């Protein structure tokens, strides 16, 4: 073992992630360790509370995916109580999820991921005219005049010359891993700014339906956005709510703007940038296994046939076989803590299904080094994340899993779109099993979802036209109508992958709550068999560091997963006792 490379903080992600990678003499990563270094204990906090309030707590697990935990949470309560929601509410949720996908993926690409591929400083050398030609050659996006790019370039130049680079300070500018010509860099920087402005409009959809973004509001039993069709409801006066004929039109135009941006900017940029980094189609494959829980129902969660994303597991890259998933099956889903800072009463190597899960924080006792520290103790616990496994297998979740699943299930638009993209990049389907494949899958998925949204809006408008204004089912709102005891699981496909919230309700209060989230599947540490999770496996796949002091390679692969670590770190405590044990040294 020649060197241990430590990247902490991993920036441009959500949450606190630390990567430690051991490299051999040639600079190749031989083993990588992914660690979540922050814990809040939201599930412990949720215990004893009103299940109807849970969404707000769960939602604060993450402010980037901001709505996914809210939705998984209300679904878990609805599943536990067998609480049916009106179709309009389902469609409103779909629209919000759809907007979240497109918004989140675009922001991830431009604001979190792009700087791994785009050298901002290099953009200063670009010729705006040539940039304009480049832009126009790949897309008919309106903002592509030489003057426009000149302005952007000037703006960046002023920033650099001011000596205060701000967020661009200390980037690995000039690193040989940056391969884009200056013009492509300039185009990407311009779109970085464009995307920032564009996303503000997209979130209006969340504001209309949920009151604000981040953290829009949800409601167990439906949606908290009554539809006002009264005369006067649309004048901005008091006689109505935010959801009315005028704002339905606004939503339509927001969807159009999303489609437009994806078609004209996001997809072309992805393909253009990927074209310069084809070697990244050959590294960063994770565990070869992929899992999808399914989501975006047209009718209801009890009708998986109406899902846009259908569930399943793909093992060992085999797209011809799809294994069924059952979230309630203790044989299928287990979480392990053999390398986490937690204790299990059954021993550190046993796995537990979330319903039976337990959590006892034990930082010091499980090998956590006393801060300040230089290095994790990877032989014992080294993360606040647990390691979930599906039938003992480490599986990857997220856009790549979903796109592969759609592809494997023969979804025509997906096959067409993927075919187009792969053809343009001159790559086989196997190229998808890679760092860049993951990034590309995110782009493709955005287009698929954006195109689907108009369909949901049309159904909702048809319902309203037919007089169906219902967005909330009042029947089971009152906890007195609930059974004494109930448990359920709320699942969804978050932008980052399969998400599930497990809830146990007793006497109208939360008895146990836990979230098994996408980044736990992806970023979790090794399991008892020492099998690496997707992050670690991907880093161990064909990565060599050009300069250990500037480990941009690690960032590229890690960012391709779009890490969201606050989500992944959790505490669950099903025994009804305070079991937080704090041992210092």
């Amino acid at each position, binding site marked *: 073992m020649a060197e241990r490379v*430590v990247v902490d*903080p*991993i*920036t*441009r*992600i*959500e949450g*606190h992630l630390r990567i430690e990678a051991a490299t051999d003499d040639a600079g190749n990563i031989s083993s990588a360790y992914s660690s979540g*270094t*922050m*814990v*809040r204990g939201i599930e412990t*906090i949720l215990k004893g509370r*009103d299940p109807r*309030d849970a969404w707000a*707590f769960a939602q*604060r*697990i*993450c*402010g*980037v995916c901001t709505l996914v935990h809210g939705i998984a949470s209300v679904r878990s309560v609805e599943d536990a109580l067998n609480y049916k929601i009106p179709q309009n509410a389902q469609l409103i949720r779909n629209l919000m999820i759809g907007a979240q996908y497109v918004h989140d993926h675009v922001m991830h690409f431009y604001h979190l991921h792009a700087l791994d591929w785009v050298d901002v400083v290099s953009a200063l050398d670009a010729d705006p005219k040539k940039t304009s030609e480049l832009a126009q050659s790949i897309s008919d996006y309106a903002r592509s005049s030489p003057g426009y790019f000149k302005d952007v370039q000037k*703006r960046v130049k*002023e*920033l650099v010359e*001011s000596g*205060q680079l*701000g*967020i*661009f*300070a*200390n980037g*690995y500018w000039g690193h040989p891993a940056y391969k884009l010509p200056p013009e492509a860099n300039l185009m990407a920087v311009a779109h970085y700014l464009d995307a*920032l402005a564009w996303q*503000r409009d997209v*979130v209006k959809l969340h*504001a209309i339906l949920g*009151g*604000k973004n*981040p953290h829009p*509001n949800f409601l167990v*039993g439906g949606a*908290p*956005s*009554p539809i*006002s*069709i009264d005369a006067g409801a649309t004048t901005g006066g008091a006689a*109505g*709510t*935010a*959801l009315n004929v005028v*704002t339905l039109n606004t939503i339509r135009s927001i969807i159009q703007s999303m489609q437009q941006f994806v078609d004209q900017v996001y997809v072309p940029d992805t393909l253009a940038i990927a074209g310069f980094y084809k070697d990244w189609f050959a590294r960063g494959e994770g565990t070869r296994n992929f899992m999808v829980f399914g989501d975006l129902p047209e009718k209801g969660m009890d009708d998986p046939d109406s899902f846009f994303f259908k569930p399943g597991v793909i093992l060992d890259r085999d797209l011809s076989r799809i294994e069924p998933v059952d979230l309630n099956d203790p044989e299928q889903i287990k979480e392990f803590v053999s390398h986490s800072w937690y204790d299990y009463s059954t021993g550190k190597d046993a796995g537990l299904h979330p319903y039976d899960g337990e959590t006892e*924080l034990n*930082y010091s006792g499980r090998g956590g080094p006393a*801060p300040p520290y230089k290095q994790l103790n990877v032989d014992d616990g080294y993360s606040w994340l647990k390691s979930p496994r599906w039938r003992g297998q480490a599986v990857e979740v997220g856009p790549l899993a979903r796109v592969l699943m759609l592809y494997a299930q023969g979804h025509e638009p997906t096959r067409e779109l993927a075919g187009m993209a792969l053809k343009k990049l001159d790559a086989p389907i196997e190229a998808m099993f890679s760092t860049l494949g993951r990034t590309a899958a995110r782009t493709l998925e955005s287009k698929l979802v954006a195109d689907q949204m108009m369909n949901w809006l049309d159904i909702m408008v048809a319902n309203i036209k037919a007089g169906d*204004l219902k967005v*909330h089912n*009042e029947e089971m*709102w009152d906890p007195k109508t609930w059974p004494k005891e109930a448990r359920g699981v709320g699942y969804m496909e978050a932008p980052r992958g399969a998400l599930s919230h497990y809830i146990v309700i007793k006497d109208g209060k939360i008895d146990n709550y836990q979230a098994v989230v996408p980044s736990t599947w992806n970023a979790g540490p090794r399991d008892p068999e020492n099998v690496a999770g997707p992050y670690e496996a991907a880093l161990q796949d064909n990565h060599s560091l050009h300069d250990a*002091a500037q480990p941009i390679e690690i960032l590229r692969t890690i960012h391709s997963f779009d890490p969201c670590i606050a989500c992944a770190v959790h505490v669950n405590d099903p025994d009804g006792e305070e079991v937080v044990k*704090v041992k210092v040294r």
Partner: protein
Amino acid sequence: MSQREENLGQYMARRGISRRTFLKFCTVMGSTMALSPAQAAEMAETMAKATRQSVIWLSFQECTGCTESITRSHNPTLESLIFDFISLDYHHTLQAAAGDAAEHAREEAMKKHKGKYVVVVDGSIPMGENAHYSTIAGITNEQMLRDTAKDCFAIVTVGTCAAFGGIPAARPNPTGAVAVSDIIKDKPIINVSGCPPMPQVMTGTLSHILTFGAIPELDHLGRPIAFFGETIHDRCYRRPFYEKGQFAKSFDDEGARKGWCLYEVGCKGPTTYNACANLKWNGADTFPVQSGHGCLGCSEPNFWDQAGGFYAPLSVGDWGSHEVLAGAVVAGAAVGAAAAVAGRSKQKSAHEEKKS
């Protein structure tokens, strides 16, 4: 690098941006912050003399919602803020650098702008023996906060977690999370609470520091009065329904559809100080109450642990259970009966005394 010392006016001038831009910025800010129109010009003059404010943004036990929120700022926009007015020298979610390079960026900014930089904090901090519940680059959040705050001009906490402890500090506070003000005692702290705070309130507060070079007027919880001076209820467009006694009884009844007051379904607007009702969210001319869900009260301390939860009307107490009251009835009856029985025997002995 001689240009390093240039002030914002020179920087803008060099960029071909006229002083009109300041004036406009200040005019608009003045409107947002309820300053008198005359103050705009004064603001513009002050601001031109300032250097781009160095800002170090520390993220601790957070969800990144606050950062997400500031990216939604319309006025000023985040890009205008970070390109034109501030120098965001350290910010996990946005900065290009990672790992050691990122930490160096922070250290450099601290050195260069010693005594002048502003620290923005989102997220709560596990303190003392719990400090290991959150670390960055191997050091605890508490340590990083102390180190970074040491030479700062002021601290702006964004979000209820940094301001008041927020969700990590909600009962039973498993990680021993505390607010910034629990750790830092010797620096001015401006609390921009909210979960998340409104984008304009964050940018507005930063702009105030930027334009006046001073701390804005604060309320007793350390929040800028310009934004936290009034309750949601005070400015709510549904207030007239409250006055008329027209209340939505559930989330999807006629009242709800007509935009009636959400008090009865748990709206915390009357006790929540924030600017949502007048500034509105995301440029969509709406805010939570308008969209149909009651205010959660997210800019207030302890809102996570408020009595009755989010759907209990504000006037409803957290008064225990019917069982407790039934117990009180039984206890009362028992004591009362005992008193009466004792009274009877007293009467009896009085009667016998008379006979004798």
